[in-house]
């Protein structure tokens, strides 16, 4: 927490060429980077080829937070440890305002970099966006082009009629109890 001795820095380059300098501990939140750093095969700038700068910024924000909550001045008691409630609130705040396109990019990034916590946040958000929606609504949300012919569409609908016929907005989805 307090100013420790000089911190080792790591440099990351996004797909669009921007270079980010972060503390090693921050980079190591990403398992993929951790492995690279531990095998010492990352001396200069690590290229993160599938992640654009604005997304990488967000990813780094996440990693910084993880470092903050996992580090602690004493081993017995970590004041930054979050309760379930706080974790949820924090996660919600972090994902707030993330649009569908950004969400997809975040998912790709956290998947590639192997950051489980961020991946889970993204998946949760994605699930809540898709659940209870009709195909057309999902297409609109994510700019998906419908490449089915009307006949094909009809065939699929008939095959699993039950999944399509009920209006999801009026269906009560009672949770487990």
């Amino acid at each position: 927490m307090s100013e420790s001795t000089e911190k080792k820095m790591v440099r990351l380059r996004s797909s669009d060429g921007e270079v980010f300098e972060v503390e090693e501990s921050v980079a190591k939140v990403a398992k993929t980077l951790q492995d690279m750093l531990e095998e010492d095969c990352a001396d200069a700038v690590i290229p993160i080829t599938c992640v654009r700068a604005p997304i990488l910024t967000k990813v780094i924000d996440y990693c910084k937070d993880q470092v903050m909550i996992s580090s602690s001045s004493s081993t017995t008691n970590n004041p930054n440890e979050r309760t379930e409630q706080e974790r949820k609130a924090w996660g919600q705040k972090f994902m707030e305002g993330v649009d569908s396109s950004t969400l997809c990019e975040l998912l790709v990034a956290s998947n590639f970099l192997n950051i489980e916590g961020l991946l889970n946040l993204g998946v949760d958000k994605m699930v809540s966006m898709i659940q209870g929606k009709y195909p057309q609504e999902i297409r609109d949300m994510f700019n998906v082009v419908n490449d089915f012919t009307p006949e094909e569409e009809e065939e699929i609908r008939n095959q699993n009629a039950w999944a399509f016929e009920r209006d999801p907005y009026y269906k009560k989805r009672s949770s487990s109890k």
Partner: protein
Amino acid sequence: MEQNLKSGIDSLSRDRISELPETLRLHILSFLPTEDCIRTSLIAKGWRYLWKFVSSLNFNYSDDHTSTALVREREKFLNFVDQVFMLRDSSDLYEFCLYYRSLRKSLSKSTVRSFNLWVAVALKLRAKKLCLHLYPESSVLELPSSRTLEVLSLTWGTINLQNLSQLCELRTLELVAVGAPSESFSNDLFSYCPALETLRFLGCDFSEWSLMCISAPSLKNIFLDECEWDDCVIKVSAPSLQRLHVNDCVWDNDCTIEVSAQRLNSFKYGFRSLPKSFVFQGLVSVDSAVISSLGACFDYDDIEASKVRFMLGGLLNIRKLNLDIDSDVVFERLPPFDCMEELTVPLYHCICDDYVNSVIKFLNSNCKMQTLNISEFVDRSDFHYDGDEHCCSQVNGRQKFTLHLLKKLVVKFWKRDDKEIEWVELLKSNSPHLNEVIRINSFGQEDEEEGMEDEEEEEDMEDEGGQWPG
């Protein structure tokens, strides 16, 4: 930030969801109810067959009581699930969950037959997790033996509990009831589950039971949530038990809990009522305990305070105590704890100085106490601690108490205001050895940190500890 994120050249109009790697899309689909999952097959060609490879099946049906064609609706649902099982790829299944609520008094034979079939297929596909929540309850299904099943969540009566012994890999068992369990289990039932680690009862009404024994060789966690007992002896005997969490249970008349668990590490007890007595045997390993009253205005009389005292009295080695009870009577009754290092208290609205006094006294009577956590300031409009006339006690001056032992203060703020800051200042100015103050905001982030320079405390404190009346 948002603008910045959007600023990619083509990011706005690109179909990014279909570009996600297939494994990732499958992962996302596995969290959706199967119905939604299948609906995605119509998004575009790249999605058409994806659902067949999803490793979890999750069905949810309940009778719509306004419908006039219930029989047909039920039939349709059964056909739908049948079809999903048939059309699905034959790859391994991770979980099969079925929530089924029918208005019938009991399930029809054909329905039960379908359920049995699905369960059999799911287990054949090496399912690791099975949730069967069926209403009406007590619709006994056949449970084939399984070497893969690890998690089982059931409404009471779904299977004959004696069959549990056929599940050699079962690690987690959750039993849910909306009322009284339709059958009892024998005392040694769980002894036959060699791998069972977690046991949870939810919403069960055990009022008719006079004795309940839970013992299992490898049981690590017991969760009792929203259950009810009446005049019952509950015996827990588990050599490997690490966690015992009791939440919002009701104890009528003379209930007793006997716990014998040498490795028990964490004890949580959230309550509106307390059983008559706790008998804790050999709970030498309990490191942390959380005791919280769930009733907002729980009235503590001497009897209740004694019960809490008695309960905690059996946990003499605890290092961390979270006592979420705003009653000075309870604090007054607590014995000193030799190992306690950390106390967490809430500050609720009805606190008066008597409470603060009793906390201070308690802090000073435990010789290793170093850390005080204060969490969730909700509303302290009646909270006067600075010489106000409403004060009912003697703490009304900043010099009147000293926290001799306190080294660390952690304050979890939900909102900051002058009162909170004032209160922290008060504690700070009366704790000569305090060297760390940490404030955390409602998102669990550290607000600001203060290191205090005066550090000449340390060793000599231990000897003095315990002698300060507060």
